[in-house]
């Protein structure tokens, strides 16, 4: 129920563990900063044994065509995500606060640009 402890994905069952005794390389989420001074943006995920490999794999998988100038890699297990069921309580309160948008206020034309 609690959103704070839940990860970004549904729980992965581990039937693979029964067949293959070795653990998978952990999953990492990859964030790339594009060329234009933008924020790092989530582009996808990949498997890597450690942080260094996560960065070099991300280079190969997600920036083959100059898509980025910087990479962040975060272990998927370390991501904390809100639960879809909490979408209402979290985001609905903003609906009634239209005065937070500048267009809420009518300013006479003779005042000029504001």
């Amino acid at each position, binding site marked *: 129920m609690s959103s704070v402890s839940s990860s970004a994905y549904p729980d992965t069952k581990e039937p*693979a563990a029964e*067949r293959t005794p*070795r653990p998978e*390389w952990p999953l990492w989420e990859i964030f790339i900063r594009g060329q234009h001074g933008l924020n790092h943006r989530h582009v*996808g*995920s990949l498997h890597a*044994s*450690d942080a260094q490999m996560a960065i070099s794999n991300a280079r190969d998988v997600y920036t*083959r065509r100059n898509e980025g100038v910087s990479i962040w890699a975060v272990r998927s297990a370390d991501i904390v995500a809100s639960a*879809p069921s909490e979408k209402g309580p979290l985001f609905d309160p903003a609906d009634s606060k239209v005065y937070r948008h500048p267009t809420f206020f009518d300013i006479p034309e003779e005042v000029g640009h504001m």
Partner: protein
Amino acid sequence: MYAQMVKTDGTGIKSSEQMTPEERAFQERIDADSRIEPKEWMPAGYRKTLIRQISQHAHSEIVGQLPESNWVTRAPTLERKAILLAKVQDEAGHGLYLYCAAETLGISRDEMFEQLHSGRAKYSSIFNYPTLSWADIGTVGWLVDGAAIMNQVPLQRTSYGPYARAMVRICKEESFHQRQGFHIMMQMAKGTEAQRRMAQDALDRFWYPALMMFGPSDADSVHSAQSMAWKIKIDTNDGLRQKFVDQTVPQAEYLGLTVPDDKLAWNADKFGEGKGGYDFSEPDWDEFFAVISGDGPCNAERLGARVKAWEEGAWYREGLMANAAKQADRQPAQAAA
């Protein structure tokens, strides 16, 4: 397509009254073109069908590297070799995007590999044909990637968010594949007589296997109807095949090559109201069923190469995990930081 004959879970489309409130809300979101994201509620059949479809698509990208890698060391020029390497690397990337998308549905990467290696999961029939000459590499780019684009462009609008986003990335890159293939064909078709014959021979061998990529007619399939209602399948197999033929025949004419089909003819009113399309022969569906169920010219070779790579890489995967664990033990402060 890259995902052929994906078995759809469920018993066919339910009417709105037959659905549970959850199912109804889910279907309404899909009908409104909203995207479904990993942790949101979804019918079990939707999840299962998507895992099957996305993993099959991913397997096709990975196995699809094999017929092309055959020509990396034999490419006619250094430039062609570099281009082919880049294309094969893209295919690996496409496989990885798709495996990631499938993993968001709750299946592990190793489990998908196990399904592929044991033969339980399918991959596209097209990759079980051999690439015998350099012209085959041109034809694969032109026809196989061309057919893939035909299927993947609409899938950018598919209802499952991670799948749709993987498709956007893939489609951006796929056009390079088709164009480099057609470029090879242009050079061969306008080259020496021997090169032209090689180009024609490649088209002769790949035309029908390319048509098979769209799968048999699914016009009356209840499973396809369910997948279409869920928007994880956007067009019918026949619709895509027709589009592919209509697009490709003029390209073959430009190359001066002959599509190996006596019945091929433009039908100006094929779909009525002045909407034309080519009449063409169906591929040999018995051959398709044999190839898709493991009995094609290269099935054993392809799966053998995959299993060999997986097994021979086991020491590497394990070794790096052991190394990562050791490093983490040595630097507890850094891990905590």
